[in-house]
């Protein structure tokens, strides 16, 4: 697969207590025409709302309502809910469990938050009000810990139990922590959620030297954010080239140069052997014996699908929860799964675009209007570091049967490369000038034959579109 990238959804491994959001009763009457909000769940420990076919009388005919439970209040889960509501907002009573104590936010935008360019409020996708408006019960900060498939109930960490007719797993993934001594020291964190961002911001206020382990997308975004917060940042990467899963070497060099110019240090080919420190991290040691001081270590070396819950429920998992083209678990057709916790046709995705596609298909099946099939995604990547423009998609390395178009303009810091097979784009790397990334991506997805455009293709859509000639017809 292409981009097991890092910039994705991880359901936190740790339970965070705190905020619990429920829809308030005051919102129930908001929309006369809409369906009413679910009755407020009572305090922790209370049973899940029952299927309320009998209660739901407000102008909705007699269709019995089923209960949909969503595990994971992240982008994949909530996008599926949104898609579902668009198709049919009467089919389900919906309950959402989230491990994080927030509404749903755009995790992709955590980097700008870390960099101080955005606030948490800026990146909220679904506010508590939204859940209330749509009659959705949200238990934020209360992760589900068990699924009883026979009883069709889930149990949260708080002990709350809720029954379901359909269950949607959107547990995302969790950061991979390299198993080295000291990895559990205070000051060693991942970069996955708002909590991590808070921790990094706090460290930036009190400490000087940060090391980011991992020269991939997320690691670089973290490094940039920490640098913007005033820290002295070094990126430690085990490979000889940054973002090697997304960028070819020339682009990686440009990227490294650009980040170095901003003051980020790099140590490539560096294999971490141990994280040093007793009460708190004080440094790292590498396999070649070098050491480096650090007050903060951010692990951004990859993600692992978060499938513990699914596995424990006996769902068939390989690298992730295995689903079919309707996003249903192979083991239990009542259970759907979307996002980074899903393995579809041997592929696990770590980027946001496939998630949107999965959400659309999954929602249509949940709504009972399912005729869509999810057949996999082609993915593209962009780095969210202000002032650095980078776009990558597809098979950007190529092989014996591919051809390539390359453009280099070092003074403008631009590098572009398209990989072609049989006159079709199969890979894109753009650095510095990414304006046409989406267009190339579209041509790639549509497998458009580009032969007639080839000479101008790399110079962008504007050069390939015939001018709207004012010539009238004959």
């Amino acid at each position, binding site marked *: 697969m292409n981009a097991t990238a890092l910039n994705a959804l991880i359901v936190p491994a740790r339970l965070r207590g705190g905020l619990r959001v429920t829809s308030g009763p005051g919102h129930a009457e908001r929309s006369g025409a809409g369906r009413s909000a679910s009755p407020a769940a009572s305090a922790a420990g209370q049973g899940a709302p029952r299927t309320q076919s009998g209660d739901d009388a407000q102008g909705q005919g007699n269709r019995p309502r089923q209960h949909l439970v969503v595990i994971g209040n992240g982008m994949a889960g909530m996008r599926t809910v949104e898609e579902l509501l668009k198709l049919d907002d009467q089919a389900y009573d919906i309950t959402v469990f989230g491990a994080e104590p927030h509404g749903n936010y755009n995790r992709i935008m955590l980097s700008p938050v870390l960099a101080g360019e955005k606030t948490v409020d800026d990146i909220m996708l679904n506010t508590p009000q939204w859940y209330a408006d749509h009659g959705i019960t949200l238990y934020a900060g209360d992760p589900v810990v068990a699924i009883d498939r026979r009883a069709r109930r889930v149990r949260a960490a708080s002990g709350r139990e809720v029954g379901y007719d359909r269950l949607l797993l959107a547990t995302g993934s969790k950061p991979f922590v390299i198993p080295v001594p000291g990895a559990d020291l205070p000051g060693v964190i991942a970069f996955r959620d708002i909590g991590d961002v808070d921790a990094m911001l706090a460290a930036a206020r009190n400490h000087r030297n940060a090391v980011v382990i991992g020269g991939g997308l997320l690691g670089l975004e973290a490094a940039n954010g920490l640098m913007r917060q005033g820290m002295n940042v070094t990126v430690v990467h085990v490979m000889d080239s940054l973002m090697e899963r997304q960028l070819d070497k020339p682009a990686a060099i440009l990227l490294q140069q650009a980040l170095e110019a901003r003051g980020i240090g790099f140590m490539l080919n560096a294999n971490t052997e141990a994280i040093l420190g007793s009460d708190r991290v004080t440094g790292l040691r590498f396999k070649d014996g070098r050491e480096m001081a650090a007050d903060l270590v951010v692990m951004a070396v990859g993600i692992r699908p978060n499938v513990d819950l699914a596995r424990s429920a006996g769902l068939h998992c390989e690298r992730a929860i295995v689903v079919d083209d309707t996003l249903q678990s192979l083991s239990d057709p009542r259970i759907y799964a979307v996002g980074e916790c899903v393995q579809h046709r041997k592929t696990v995705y770590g980027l946001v675009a496939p998630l949107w596609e999965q959400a659309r298909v999954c929602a249509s099946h949940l709504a009972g209007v399912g005729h869509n099939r999810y057949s996999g995604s082609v993915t593209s990547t962009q780095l969210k570091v202000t002032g650095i423009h980078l776009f990558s998609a597809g098979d950007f390395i190529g092989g014996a049967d591919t051809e390539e178009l390359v453009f280099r*303009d070092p003074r403008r810091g631009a590098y572009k490369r398209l990989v072609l097979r049989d006159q079709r784009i199969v890979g894109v790397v753009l650095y510095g000038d990414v304006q046409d990334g989406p267009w190339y991506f579209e041509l790639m997805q549509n497998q458009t034959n580009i032969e007639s455009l080839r*000479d101008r293709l790399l*110079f962008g859509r504007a050069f390939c579109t015939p001018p709207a000639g004012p010539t009238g017809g004959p």
Partner: protein
Amino acid sequence: MSTGAGVNTTCPYCGTGCGVTARVTTAGVEVAGDTTHPANLGRLCVKGSALGETVVDEGRLLYPALRDRNSPNPPQRVSWETALDTVADGFARIMREHGPESVAWYVSGQLLTEDYYVANKLVKGFVGSANIDTNSRLCMSSAVAGHKRAFGEDIVPVSYEDLEDAELIVLVGSNTAWCHPVLYQRILKAKARRPSLQIVVIDPRRTATVELADLHVPLRAGSDVWLFNGLLTFLERSGATDAGFVSEHTRGVADALAAADIELETVAQQCGVDSDTLTAFYRLFARTEKVITCFSMGVNQSSAGTDKVNSIINCHLLTGRIGKPGMGPFSLTGQPNAMGGREVGGLANMLAAHMDLENPDHRALVQTFWNSPRIAEKPGLKAVELFEAIEQGRIKAVWIMATNPVVSLPDADQIKRALQRCEMVVVSDVIANTDTTPFADVLLPAHAWGEKDGTVTNSERCISRQRPFVPVAGEARPDWWALSEVARRWGYGEQFAYTSAHEIFDEHARLTACGNGDDAASDHSCARYLNLSGLTGLDRQAFDAMKPRRWPVVQGDADTNLRVFSDGRYYHSDRRARLVPTPPRLPAHATANEFPLVLNTGRVRDHWHTMTRTGLAPRLASHTHEPYVDIHPLDAAEALLKVDELARVTTRWGSLVARVRCSGEVQQGTIFVPIHWNEQFASNARVGALVNPVVDPVSGEPEFKHTPVRVEPFRVDWHGFVLSRGRLPMEGVTWWTRAAGAQFARYEVAGRQKVDNWPALARSALGVPDGADWIEYIDTASGVYRAAYVIEDRVEACLFVSSRPDLPSRAWLSSLFQKPKIDNLDRLGLLVGEPLDSSADTGPTICSCFGVGRNTITNAIEQGGCNSVEALGAKLRCGTNCGSCIPELQKLLVAPTATA
């Protein structure tokens, strides 16, 4: 030098001899048409208009230099003293050892009359041989010979004004629209005023001249004599003979008619023209009294050139259509002073002032006049023979002046061999590096146009002044001065004591008058029509003030404008004209299996001769920027040639490589290659090397228009072009051409060696340092590589390469070189080769005068509502100056793309 005030002088290009006003400004030399000059009345063609761009120091030969043949070093600068001593001693030694026939001069229609006069005098009177010939031999010697056979003297009996009087103008072997654009425009103007004026073009090619003609007779190359014999027969049979004129003023009519007797069907067959077209032309000619037959290189440059000329003149003599307004045979000369050279006798078969070598009275007269120790008694070697004699070692020293024989002569590789063998080669030129200068032992820097001071004579016998208007570059000197200095070293200081051009002109004028009495009864008549007695005795001021004058200018004769031949008197001793029998014959070399096609050569619109001058002007480079071979599509298909790819063109004598074109202008079985390109501008494009060295037996003019040839694909691995502010070395490039651009040089290149690492090669070829602003585009699979070198936002160079010749237009890229800084949008388009807003790409230049491109013109036609040449001119100015692009505008107006 003058600043601000204009200086009236004469254009140095074709034989039209247009007056120009040159003005030196801070921005350079500005040139405009001289409204008072009778040749052009203010009009100029694009070449004339761009003259200012050629008055530059770039490439000038500034100092005398000597080359040591045993040293690989370039020629070393020496003083004039040393250089002239070397020449004088060298020539004297060789003459002493091998006699006067062992040295030769090869001069040029580019020389002023004064230079020509001194050279001719030195050789024929003081060396004592007639081994002085000129590149005019290649151009109009058949016309000279034809005139002499018919009229007894080399007299052009028509003036430009006559063109406005004519009712039928026949253009034979003349692409007048391109080669004499000002005359062509004059003809078109006359036709616009008087639409009954008919224009017939007789040419194997469908040239630009044909576009606006009433009738095109596309005869087979070399069949002109059949055509005009057929006309003579038709005129006689249809009763068009002017019996009174013929019997009173001519001889030879019976023999001429007998030789010409031919049936229409035979003409049709021989000329490859259908009989309807022939009949149309013959009838038109027969019924039109006022007919002028203009002829040019297509007639002259033939092994039957003189007969072609006489077959034309015969038709005018039979019908008495000569010596009256609006009629007559009219030779259009190609050089600014071919006529002046003829007047002073600067050819191997002439003596001086229209007197004959073979005539003892003439010789005596001239020798006395010159006070010379000897006088040449027999014709010298004509151009082709002269260089053959050099190769054979019979001539051991040659002084080449103002011409580039390694490019322009037929079998031009033979010229290289000859010059290599020659003991002493002296070259007087204004340009340091031509294809000929590498062979020079002595290089002498000559005055260039703008420095030259003297006179020239145009096609209609009009003498006008070339006046200097810029300071002389380096140590350049007049050619007459260098010649006189050598004469002085030989002990003839007294006879060559010239201090100024006007003294020479005066001597020349006096010689034309010398013995030129009207004593027709005398057995020893020296009467000539050429008589400049009215121009004798001019002092420097009078010479400087001299207005353009058509000769003769006879002292005391108020009516010097009496039309020539209007009195029915010709210049044979019996005062009658001759109809010359012209039995037709085929070109010397027939096509054969190995060489199945016929090579025709000629000019392109915006270049002239060997490009030493036009090659400097960016404005002239864009219309036709590289050598090409124009071939009929069926012949191309048979030879597996593709348009825009390269072809090798081979004859028994040599080969070249040029771009394939199928313009639709050439007949099946023939190809056309332009004459201009040479080793300074292309790796391998000297068509002279391919031309058969056969000559007309009378005139000695070579057969440039007919050489058996074959064309085959020239396969290359890659095609490309480079635009660069700096000159680039082209060593090792399989094929290249160079053209001048505004602030850059344009190279078209192609290579046979596969290039694995274009980025590395390109950087080193363009001299791009590490860390430079260098933009690249690579499509390895397609063999495409493009790069641009930018210095502080100013384009320094760009390179485009492809495995196919499908490279983008150079027009917009070229325009970037005129910008002190390119903006971001420019930069985006830089490696596309066109701007994002494609309307900014004006396309290939059509109108060079105003730099109007094809895209601009087609837009104006399709969207601007322009539906005529006039409308285009009003909107875009194209075609409103020299008009030489009007045929192309006409083509675009009727093109299918423009009919929507």
